[in-house]
Every structure is written in C-alpha cells, then in structure tokens.
C-alpha cells in the first residue's frame, strides 16, 4: 500500500488530485476500486498499468465521475486543477466534462457514433463554450480558453490539423466507417483536445492498432499534451508502451494502486512483487533469438514450401512463398493485419485449399484440402486458433474437447484419463481441469486448453495463429514459455504474429510477410539487429523498445512542429 501522498502541500500545477477514491459494485457491494489516491501535474502523463480485471478502466471512468451500470462511487474526492468534481451534481459534472476532463476510448470504432458525421461529433464536443467560469489566471490557460471561445467551426479545423487529419468540408462530412482505424483514433484524440481540457484520460487507445499506427498515435498524444500543457492518465496493460510515454507510473492490482513512482525509478527499481512480475512479462525486442536444440536427424526439413500462391476467388493474397521448417525449430511469421499470414497458415493446415505450389511434409506432398490428407498427416500437423474464447465448444468439458480429435485421428485410446492428464500437464494445467467447462476458465487457461487439445495427438508441427494477441501481456509471457518447452521436446512451430517483440523470444528464424510476399527471411538475431528490407526496418523502429533508456525513446525527443503524417 504505497501511494505516497502528501496532499497538504497543495501544488498549484496539479491537474488531477484524487484522494481515497472507492468504487463499489451493486448489488454485491464488492469494492472494484479501493481507496485510490493519485496526483498528476499539468503536462505530465501518468501511466496506469495493470492486467484486465484490475479495475483500471473503472478508475479511468471514475475520473470523469462516470460509473458503468451497477457501479457507484462511494468515497473519495476528485479535483481537477483545484475544482472539485462532485459525482452527485449531474449538471456540474456535465459542464466539466469535455472542458476540464476528456476521455479517449479504447476502441474508436465503437466509440464514434456510426450515424453522425465527424463534423457534428467534433463540434458538439465544444458545448457550453465560454460558460465555464474557470478561474484560469495564467496567460497560457487564458489563451486556451480564447481558442475555445471563438468560432466552433474554425476550432474544429484547427484541432484536426493538429492531429494531422484533413480539415476540409469533405472530411467533416464523412462518417466514422469511412476512416481507417488510425484515423478514427485521431478523430477521438481531436475530440478530446478540442475543449482544451486540463486532464485527458486515455483508455488503452492503441490496443486495436498495429505497431506502425500505434507509433503515430502515441507520438500525436505526446505532441498534443506538450502543446496544450494537458495532463494525461494513460491506461494500459502493456508496460512497454507506458515506459515509452509516461513520466510517472502507477501499478494497479485488484483495485488498488500497489506501487507508484517516477517512471525511470519504477522501471529501474520496482518494489512491489507484482510490478516485478509485470516487468518480467514484457518481451525483449532484440535478442539473438531463442536457442533451440540442434536438429537430431539430418533428413531434410520437416516442412518444405515452394512457390505457394493462394487467394480468394480472383484476388491473390499470397505469391511466391518459400519456407523451410526443421524439427524442433520455430519459424516466426511476422506481418501486419492483411499481410496474408493467416491465409498461409490455414493453407498449410488444409483449411484453405485454393492454393497452388509445393507443400512437402516429412518427404510426402500434402494435399491442399485436409479432407484429402491421411489421418496420420492430419494428426502430425495441428493448429491453434487466435481467439480462445471462440475456439472451444462451450457445451463440452475440457476432457471431451481434448479426447475428440485424439479419438478421431489416433483411434480409441487405451487409457483416456492418461491422455487427458498428459496433455493438460504438458500445457501446464492440473489434471482436475478435465472436468471443467470452458466458461469456468480464464482467457489464458482457455488458450492452454487449446494447446493441450492440439498437442494431445503428439503432432510434429504446431501452427499457432496469433495465439497470444487476445491475452494480457503477463499471460502472453506464460504461453510463450510453454511453447518454448514444447519446442525443446522436439516439436516444430510455425508462430504467426504481428507482435515483433515476441519473435526473438520464441523463434530461431523469422519470415517477414508484407502484402502477400516474404520480404525478409533469416535468423532472428540477424534480422532484428540488421534488417535489410525497409518494411522490416520500419516495423522495428515503430515498436516501443523496453530496453531503450528512458530519455532515448523517440517519443521523448522535443516535440517538433511537424505533426505525424497521415496513414
């Protein structure tokens, strides 16, 4: 219980001052947030880190005096630049929202109204202009108020220019679905900054974006908070992003702030065991690659792909794919959404059969469709799906989920209990989990069951399609550890991912996929330290690197006048 609070010494510059904030769930009376005390100085960014379920989003919303259905703020005080935000006074809360405190949501695609034009949504955020009654004294704040008090249309264009979006009428007439994910998030940022608030709450604003877009958005956020002197509370489960952006970090665990301090101190010398655990979970970007045991027999690669070309109907998605995979090795297939990496893995496993080219598995060619492969071939190549919440039949027990493919491919087992127990054990789950249903499991446990199901048949090749993308960073680290152990047992892995930071922690070779072609292929160590293709170079540059010392991060360089370019 740290939260070193010294609120007696009231700093004029504190944009946010929270004391003893408690949020309770109804009707169970469970405390979702317990006695949280925070302070953020103007122009600073506080990183709020924790795993899903730790209460960080609830806390973020409470900072705007907003409670989701069936929750309630029961104790504590919130002050924004000295003015108290009283959750009981709805009219006052409304006046302060948008003007003193604003919110940037996790998913702009669902937070922008699909039926309203962007211009309307931006303009309406400028409600109550001038009626703020703010006691702003310093010149900077007065200038900001003037900007807001002017012509609303002009202010909308100005803020759009600041986030590097077009400001013409045609753009203002667009609907949210006509923008890319990155542009939508910038509109959300513009919408938050349009009223020149003292504080901005950012709830995982880059979670749904790929690394290149994420880098642009983070840069925009940094630039805007600098420009406006606005304080930020940046909520995230990803320590790497927070380390890049925040001046101060607070770690949340089960509704409490367990550790809080300046970013470099907290990252360099974490005190609380949970902080240590979170920091350990962050994958390190540049390593020589995970070293695997030498391939035992020299009988050629286990999987050999030559000139694979695949598509849907007339559209070609992949072309000229060559790939080799030896026993006990892991090849990472790296690419952004739309690069064709899932199509490739589905082709290899036989789920997508509109492809041509040579796929040889252990010396024998594989038929395009899994229906035309032998049971033995199907047994030896297994697939793990991206989303563990959809890959398990909710009506079946874990035991049946594991036994079904086994019985189908390898015949009736002598001792079914042993099969289930062994598979669960290799996936680091207790044998007693066999009796559970999927909804009695957490996300990480579900993914372990998916893994157990895949490895129960003792395959030689495991294809993992972004299997950690739906999971928290800490859970992701555990899954990666598990896969490394499987690899040590001699299993070959094709690890599909868009997360470059994971690559060096699991794979020996990496294939970078861009627009349906492999643009770079080689040892992990070589590719990560000396990428040759511009696309790989850009990917690596855009990924927040935990190892970079704090001040060296590109986001902490002095803000330049040129805002980030469009995507």
């Amino acid at each position, binding site marked *: 219980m740290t939260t070193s609070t010294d609120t007696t010494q009231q700093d004029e510059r504190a944009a946010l001052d929270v004391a003893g904030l408690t949020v309770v769930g109804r009707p169970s009376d469970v405390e979702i947030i317990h006695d949280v005390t925070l302070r953020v100085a103007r122009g600073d960014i506080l990183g709020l880190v924790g795993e899903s379920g730790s209460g960080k989003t609830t806390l973020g*919303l409470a900072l*705007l005096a*907003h409670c989701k*259905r069936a929750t309630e703020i029961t104790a504590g005080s919130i002050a924004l630049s000295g003015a108290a935000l009283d959750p009981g006074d709805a009219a006052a*809360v*409304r*006046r*302060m*929202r*948008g*003007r003193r405190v*604003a*919110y940037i*949501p996790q*998913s702009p695609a*669902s*937070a*922008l*109204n*699909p*039926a*309203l034009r962007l211009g309307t949504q931006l303009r*309406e*955020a400028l*409600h*109550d202009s001038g009626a703020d009654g703010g006691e702003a004294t310093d010149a900077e704040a007065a200038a900001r108020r003037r900007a807001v008090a002017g012509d609303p249309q002009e202010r909308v264009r100005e803020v759009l220019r600041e986030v590097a979006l077009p400001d013409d009428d045609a753009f203002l007439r667009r*609907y949210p*679905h*006509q923008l890319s994910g990155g542009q939508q998030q910038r509109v959300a940022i513009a*919408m938050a900054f349009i009223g020149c608030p003292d504080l901005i709450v950012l709830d995982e604003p880059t979670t749904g974006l790929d690394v290149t877009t994420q880098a642009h958005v983070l840069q925009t956020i940094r630039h805007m908070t600098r420009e406006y002197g606005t304080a930020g509370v940046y909520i995230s489960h990803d320590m790497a992003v927070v380390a890049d952006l925040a001046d101060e970090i607070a770690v949340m665990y089960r509704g409490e702030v367990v550790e809080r301090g300046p970013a470099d101190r907290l990252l360099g010398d974490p005190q609380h065991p949970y902080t240590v655990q979170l920091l350990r979970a962050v994958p390190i970007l540049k390593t020589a690659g995970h070293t695997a045991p030498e391939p035992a027999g020299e009988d050629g690669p286990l999987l050999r792909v030559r000139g694979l070309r695949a598509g849907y109907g007339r559209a070609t998605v992949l072309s000229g794919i060559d790939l080799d995979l030896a026993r006990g090795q892991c090849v990472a297939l790296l690419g952004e959404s739309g690069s064709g990496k899932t199509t490739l893995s589905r082709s290899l496993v036989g789920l997508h059969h509109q492809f041509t080219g040579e796929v040889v598995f252990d010396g024998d060619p594989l038929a395009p469709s899994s229906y035309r492969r032998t049971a033995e071939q199907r047994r030896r190549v297994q697939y793990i799906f991206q989303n563990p919440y959809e890959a398990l039949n909710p009506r079946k027990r874990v035991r049946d989920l594991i036994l079904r493919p086994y019985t189908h491919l390898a015949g009736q087992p002598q001792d079914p209990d042993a099969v289930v127990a062994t598979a669960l054990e290799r996936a680091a789950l207790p044998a007693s989990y066999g009796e559970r249903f999927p909804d009695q499991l957490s996300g990480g446990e579900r993914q372990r069951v998916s893994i157990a199901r895949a490895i129960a048949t003792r395959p030689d090749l495991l294809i993992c399609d972004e299997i950690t993308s739906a999971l928290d960073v800490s859970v992701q680290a555990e899954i990666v550890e598990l896969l490394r152990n499987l690899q040590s047992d001699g299993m070959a892995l094709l690890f599909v991912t868009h997360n470059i930071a994971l690559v060096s922690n699991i794979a020996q070779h990496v294939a970078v996929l861009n627009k349906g072609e492999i643009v770079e292929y080689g040892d992990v160590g070589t590719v990560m330290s000396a990428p040759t293709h511009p696309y790989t170079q850009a990917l690596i540059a855009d990924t927040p690197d935990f190892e970079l010392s704090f001040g060296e991060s590109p986001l902490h360089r002095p803000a330049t006048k040129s805002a980030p370019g469009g995507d």
Partner: protein
Amino acid sequence: MSRLILYRLGYGLLTLFVVSLVVFLATQALPGDAARAILGRDATAERVALLRDQLNLNDPLAVQYGKWLAGLFTLDLGDSFANARPVSEYLGPRVTASFVLMGLAALIATPVSLLIGAYSALRRDRAADHATSAVSLVLAALPEFAVGILLILLLSTGWLHLLPPVFAGSASAVLADPAQLILPVLTLVLAVSPPIIRMMRASMIEVLESEYVQQARLKGLPERVVVWRHAAPNAIGPVAQVIAVQLGWLAGGVVAIEFLFAFPGIGLALMDAITTRDIPVIQAVTLLIALVYIVVNLLADVVGLAANPKVRVSAR
C-alpha cells in the same frame, strides 16, 4: 443505393406475380361451385350450365388466369358474381374506407410505440418499465378481436357508454362521424403496438449501453442530446423491420376488426364474398392485401437503408 432500391422493387413485383398465381389457384380450389352458389340449391342443371358459360368458368385454367391477369393491368377486375357490378367499382369506396382505418392506426401506433419503447428503455428496471412490459405482453398475447370485444364492453355497452359499438354508415363517408372510428382504430393500434414497443425497448437498451453513447455522455452532452441525437436514430434501424411486419399485418388483421365493428371496408367485403363464392372479389381483395404487405416491406427496406450511413454512402 438507388440500384439497391430498384433491385428490391423488382423483387417485390416478382413476389406479387407469384402471389397472384397462388391466389388464383387457391380460389379455384375453394369448395363449391360459383354458379351454384349464386343460383342457390334448387337451381336446375341447365341454368347452372348457362351461368357457368356466362362467367367463363368452362375455359381452361390457364386461359382464365391470363384473362384475369390482363384485366389487372387495366384495373378491370371483372364483374362481381354476387351483384354483377364491376369489382373495381364495388370495392373502390371500401378500399378507401379501409385505408383510412389502417392509415389512422399506423399513424398513431408507430410514433406512440416508438416513444413508449424508448421511454421504457430509459426507465429500465423501474416501475414504469415493468408496467409497460406487463401490459404489452398481455396485449400481444390476446387476439385482436378479443381486444376489440373487451373495448366494446368497456367503452360502449358495459361499463361506460361513450362510443358506438358498431359502425353505422356508408363506405363512402367513413370520416363523416369520427367518433365511430375511435374503437376500430384503437383496437388496431393496441393489436399492432406491443411488438414494436418491445423491439424498440430492446434496441434502445442495447444502444444506450454502447460505447458511443457512453462517449457522448463523457463529452458532457446534455442527456436530451444524448438520447435524441446519439441513441434514438441508431435504435430505430432494427425496429423498422418489425414496424413493417406489423403494418403489413394490419392489412390482414383489418378483416376480423371490420367484421367485428361492421365497418364497411375490404375486410367485410372479403367475408361477404367468401360466403357467396364471389371469386373475383376474393381474388381482388387478397391480391390487394398482398400488395399492401409488399409495399410496406419495401418501404421498410428503403428506410432501413437510408438510416444506415454505411449503405447510404458506399452503395451509391
């Protein structure tokens, strides 16, 4: 978007053609013989044969259908068997009368149900919401003529004597005495509304829980703007289909209600025509009911498309 509408329009015409075929064949399959029904039980065989000849009942089915279909395009629906007047002339004022009845019911039911549904969603889990749910469930469970009978008992014969229980007047002047219209319209409104209310409530609750409504609140917008600008337009889209189904149902449901209140519209005409085996009238009325159904659904599609910017903008 206009291409989409044209496509739906063509689809509607095709449906109408199929319906005309089914209606024609079904009326042919009605038990009994039209000529005998017109002339009565004790008519001689010669007279029946003569009448069959006059009514073209001896032609092959395909020829009869062809003549009927050709007549449809010129609004010549043949002559009524029962009273020998042209069907269009006989039905004309009745169609107008029924449309007045249905139009009034639709004009009242749609906005009122949408408002009640939205209000219910805003008061979710409070007394007003529970009351609305209970009443609409009971009304949805009752057949429309039972509702009508209850209303007659309540408002005109039993408890209060405010309104006339049956319609007394001619089809050409239904608006002459508006008080007579209240009970039939009210019955139709009560019969049509419950599904719209329930759907609007569900849709509105979903929208109110959405992130864009939360974001609108977090922007500090007044609740009035949140509800009417951000929530309601998005909630109405899915309800449009239900409204269409309900208003389409009106065209058929009006038959029982007109019979109950002795209202001189197409419903009563249909009931009479069935008892007298007046096939041209039966065909015309059923086809008209199908036409109303198709038009209303087409309108709902257009409204649904227009309410969705994704379709409106991209599929131009």
